[in-house]
């Protein structure tokens, strides 16, 4: 195996200010070219912070970052402003939950896409505009030539999301980061966007990290799933392994408490309690206070990742490791 495209090791992010939050407490991610990783977690689990750290989008004054992030052989945390500007949009691109906030309201969509292409590839405006048109066709925006001259507010939610995808992919990034891009969309539109992302990811051969709180959405787009809790990855593995045979008590609880049709008339197995506040860095397993299997040993030290199957690991001392 050659070195992965994305190699994140022991990433720790602490926010200080009025309140201290230990948002990430040791995250490791390795992603191969063309691979699609779904990060599943609840609010405050650190899933969005992980993506933002990869693009250095966190407020520098209030954030302490430790660990390492390497993407395509480059050390992201060591980049200066120029290198960072080259890297954003060219190597790694990101799409957000709310395109209305991510797009610039005072420029047409065609202008914004062309601007990005000119910045990264140094081509002339006509070529850049042609690329914008190609991208609009790829994301299947109806009457694309006309829509290039539209402003973001003139489009519906689903079309804006498509336009943002076109902008993010215009310079053919190697990695696409997607932060809940379909959460604000209606059900019939959400599935269209998910299928579009899956198709573009495959066609363009790019790697993708897709953050979501919705298990079904993660299943639709991911090759692998990483489950986050309290600023750590608690389980990761192939999508079928994690969904069909979850190992970590949190993943099991999450699957059991996710409502689906067959559960009618039965009582839901809710996980008691609430997610941790992360005001102090958790010294042991951060799920221990809510876990039925917790023992004093769980609070003592951070559990190591244990192999529970082929390429399937869980951070729990109560799960039996697979026979190596």
């Amino acid at each position, binding site marked *: 195996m050659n070195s992965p495209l994305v190699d994140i090791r022991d990433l720790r992010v602490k926010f200080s200010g009025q309140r201290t939050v230990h948002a990430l407490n040791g995250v490791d991610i390795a992603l191969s070219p063309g691979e699609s990783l779904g990060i599943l977690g*609840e*609010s405050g689990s650190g899933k969005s912070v992980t993506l933002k750290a990869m693009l250095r989008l966190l407020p520098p004054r209030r954030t302490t970052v430790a660990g390492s992030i390497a993407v395509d052989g480059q050390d992201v945390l060591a980049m200066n402003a120029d290198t960072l500007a080259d890297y954003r949009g060219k190597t790694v691109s990101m799409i957000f939950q709310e395109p209305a906030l991510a797009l610039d309201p005072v420029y047409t969509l065609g202008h914004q896409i062309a601007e990005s292409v000119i910045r990264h590839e140094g081509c002339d405006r006509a070529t850049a505009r042609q690329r914008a048109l190609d991208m609009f066709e790829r994301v299947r925006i*109806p009457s694309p030539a006309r829509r290039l001259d539209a402003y973001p507010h003139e489009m*519906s*939610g*689903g*079309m804006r999301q498509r336009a943002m995808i076109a902008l993010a992919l215009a310079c053919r990034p190697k990695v696409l980061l997607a932060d809940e891009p379909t959460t604000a969309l*209606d*059900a*019939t*539109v*959400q*599935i*269209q966007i*998910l*299928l579009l992302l899956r198709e573009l990811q495959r066609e363009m051969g790019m790697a993708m990290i897709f953050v979501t*709180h*919705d*298990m*079904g*959405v993660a*299943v*639709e787009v991911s090759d692998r799933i990483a489950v986050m809790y309290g600023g750590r990855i608690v389980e990761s593995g192939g*999508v*079928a392994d994690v*969904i*069909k045979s979850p190992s970590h008590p949190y993943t099991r*609880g*999450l699957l059991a*408490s*996710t*409502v*689906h*049709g067959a*559960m*009618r008339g039965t*009582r*839901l*197995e*809710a*996980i*008691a309690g*609430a*997610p941790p506040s992360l005001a102090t860095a958790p010294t042991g397993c951060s799920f221990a206070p809510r876990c039925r299997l917790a023992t004093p040993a769980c609070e003592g030290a951070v559990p190591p990742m244990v192999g529970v199957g082929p390429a399937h690991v869980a951070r729990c001392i109560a799960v039996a490791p697979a026979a190596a």
Partner: protein
Amino acid sequence: MSAPSAAAVAAPESSAQTTPPLLSVRGLVKHFPITGGILGRKVGTVQAVDGVDFDIAKGETLGVVGESGCGKSTTARLVMHLIQPDAGDLRVEGRTIGLNLTLRELRRGVQMVFQDSFASLNPRLTIQDSIAFGPKVYGTPEREALARAHDLLEKVGLDPMSFGRRYPHELSGGQRQRVNIARALALQPKLLLLDEAVSALDKSVEAQVLNLLVDLKAQFDLTYMFISHDLNVVQYMSDRVMVMYLGRVAEIGPVEIIYGGARHPYTRALLSAMPSMDPAKRTMEAPLAGDPPNPIDPPSGCRFHTRCPFAEVVCSTRVPDLLRQPETAQHAVACHMADASSGHSRAGSGT
């Protein structure tokens, strides 16, 4: 744009022959004007709710599903009279609002829980005061109101001694939503309107609150109108389900029929747009193309015809009535394909 005749309305055929349904809604209409320009002239109308009929029988849960702009939240607000309907008839246990039911009586019998747990609590009141506020307004003595607030906090799983004197910002989202539920129950209502009440909660907390809602319903003999965009949750909670599209009812019926044998093409599309939970059975094709149309200028005839794979000429020219299905009287569909006399080529073929 005539409202469907009363005979066409899907009322549950239960023992309701003599006792009227808990809530009965007929021909409910709400259009919001859009003003523009410096003179604030009316430039358009949002047809938020446009001729909605339904009943809720005592003790049942009616789930309401639909995409944004379909009018599900507006319907709930109209039932509560938080906004005034333009037209329509609202009855609670057979009594009409404005005629022989005062607004005060209505709000005592019907209460609502909103999606945003923070915005719906007064930030300057402790949570016990928030819960006791309603009863005090309705004449309960201070001490008794507070005792009831404590009792309700305990019922929703929050220790009154440690939580009662806290302010909303000191609670988590799940805890705040429990407070909102307790407050809604403080006036001992018969009907609770739950408008996306669990949608903002994390999955692990959502399950706790759903369990609580199920328990409270049995304990206090409640009736729910459960509005959500989450089809899984609606299936879990509801006895009957109403599917709305752009201000109208597309289909209404028992939960097993809506989820197992829906007849409206929109209901089917909505269900097949649910992400798969099985990695081996991923969705291969989106059931519908495009976004829902704008309710400012909705399509003519059947409002779904612009996105419907089976649309014919009749669909764009005539509004389909919400017709009871011959197989199950509780099941009603507003689609020309389900109406043998509509002239649609697939009418009556059972597709």
